[in-house]
């Protein structure tokens, strides 16, 4: 078989075998509806409770503060719209950033159509918000601050504890999208002052289609999926028992040796970044040099375009992703790369390679070997490159 190197762990991860094994009985043996009174249901209720408590422990949260959803996007939508609807009589101003995931950004834009006012904070060249600007944006009618924990494209980790403190001082609800941070950063919701937090299992070697919203006790929020009395009446729908069980197992695995996992990722990532920087001219790293996700390498490769690059990498078996307009179907280059001040052209040539638990040193070296000639080939085709070769 052709060599295949998966470096798109931020997009999604393979499920760990231990996770699948844990899930299997719940598909067709212990399949009952946990809301049912009979034993087919009851035994499932305790499996769900166990997963909930495992996850709660990894966050220093209470078991009654964890609410399962159909994924990270639903959790983001719920956190934001749920608070906006619950507090709209108090105020209609929301603060977020320009670098949020679309699940947050588009939800905020929808709120704007609905009469809310949203401030989108700028970020610096590393993708960091400025605490002063956050403070300055706060108004008497601000009801919600939603700022992501770690960025999915460039990996930058925001100063969550400082934000939490400000939110608390001003008595504003604080939501954070921690979909990328979970499993890669230690998170103590109490210590960080988080009121609401979105997570998704498929980013931590768990199943797709399951996420959760952490809701600090006492936080005012409406449901967005109405119906049955599941999740203590806050999120309707028959519990996705196998997925919840899998999420619990994945969370357990992620946090039982997180230090080791982080070290391994950082080592491999630095090898990759250094290797590429040595071999390819006119490239630079996006995101913060140190306050970044352990597995994230996002580089801009000047004079070339991301989709073409991904296609060529795919031909040699390397799977990555790009912030190029041409890959997104939306025709605008990544809003994150634009927000950190890249030009259209440079944003186009960005490549995100994200490392995970199954990445090996060999994989990294294979990329360091394969990427330079591909870049060179594309640059030879590029009208932008001529000038440089002549000019510089």
């Amino acid at each position, binding site marked *: 078989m052709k060599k295949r190197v998966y470096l798109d762990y931020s997009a999604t991860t393979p499920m760990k075998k231990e996770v699948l094994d844990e899930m299997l009985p719940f598909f067709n043996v212990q399949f009952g509806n946990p809301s049912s009174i009979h034993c087919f249901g009851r035994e499932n209720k305790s499996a769900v409770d166990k997963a909930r408590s495992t996850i709660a422990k990894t966050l220093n949260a209470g078991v009654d503060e964890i609410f399962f959803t159909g994924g990270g996007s639903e959790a983001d939508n719920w956190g934001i719209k749920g608070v906006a609807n619950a507090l709209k009589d108090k105020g209609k101003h929301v603060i977020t950033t320009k670098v949020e995931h679309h699940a947050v950004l588009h939800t905020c834009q929808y709120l704007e159509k609905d009469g809310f006012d949203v401030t989108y904070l700028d970020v610096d060249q590393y993708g960091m918000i400025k605490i002063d600007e956050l403070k300055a944006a706060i108004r008497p009618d601000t009801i919600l601050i939603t700022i992501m924990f770690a960025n999915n494209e460039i990996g930058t980790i925001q100063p969550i504890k400082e934000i939490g403190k400000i939110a608390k001082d001003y008595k504003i609800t604080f939501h954070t999208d921690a979909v990328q941070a979970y499993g890669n950063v230690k998170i103590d919701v109490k210590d960080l002052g988080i009121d609401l937090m979105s997570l998704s299992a498929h980013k931590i070697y768990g199943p797709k289609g399951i996420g959760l919203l952490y809701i600090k006790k006492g936080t005012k929020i409406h449901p967005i999926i109405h119906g049955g009395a599941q999740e203590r009446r806050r999120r309707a729908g028959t519990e996705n028992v196998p997925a919840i069980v899998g999420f619990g197992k994945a969370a357990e695995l992620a946090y039982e040796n997180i230090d080791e996992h982080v070290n391994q990722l950082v080592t491999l990532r630095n090898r990759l970044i250094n290797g590429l920087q040595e071999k390819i001219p006119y490239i630079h790293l996006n995101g913060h040099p140190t306050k970044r996700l352990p597995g994230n390498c996002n580089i801009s490769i000047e*004079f*070339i*375009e*991301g*989709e*073409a690059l991904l*296609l*060529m990498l795919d*031909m040699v078996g390397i799977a990555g992703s790009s912030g*190029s*307009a*041409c*890959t997104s*179907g939306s*025709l605008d*280059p990544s809003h994150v790369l634009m927000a950190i001040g890249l030009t*259209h*052209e440079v944003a*186009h040539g960005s490549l995100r390679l994200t490392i995970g638990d199954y990445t090996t040193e060999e994989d990294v070296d294979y990329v360091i070997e394969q990427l330079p000639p591909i870049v060179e080939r594309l640059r*030879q*085709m*590029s*009208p*932008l490159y*001529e000038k440089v070769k002549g000019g510089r």
Partner: protein
Amino acid sequence: MYSEKVMDHFSNPRNVGEIENADAVGQVGNAKCGDIMKMYLKIEGDTIVDVKFKTFGCGSAIATSSMATEMIKGKTIKEALNLTNRAVAEALDGLPPVKMHCSVLAEQAVKAAIYNYAKEKGLHFEELEGFNPDEEHDHHDHGHDEEDH
């Protein structure tokens, strides 16, 4: 996502490069996605005897550049001016709807090169009436959102 032909022209693009002392050079940019294509023509009489391109753009942009150069090489200027982006896309066995606009680049780059050539030589082509090489073209279809936006 892409047809075999697109992938072929993308991975083995024909006529990549520059022509030194080209008779006609045109460069256009895509308003939609910010991509750039540059076309070099060697013209003898009214025939395009050689053509080369350089493209900063996606797989589809590279493949359509390559296909367009093949389709106009050896053709008359008039024939080249009648090349449409749809014809290029068809020759590639089609493009995904969101990628149709990339093929517009190829059509425009050919036109831009001939436009510059005509201006320099004081020639007139009725096919170029109303053509403005600096105008950013935006009128071609691409994948559409559903009704609810």
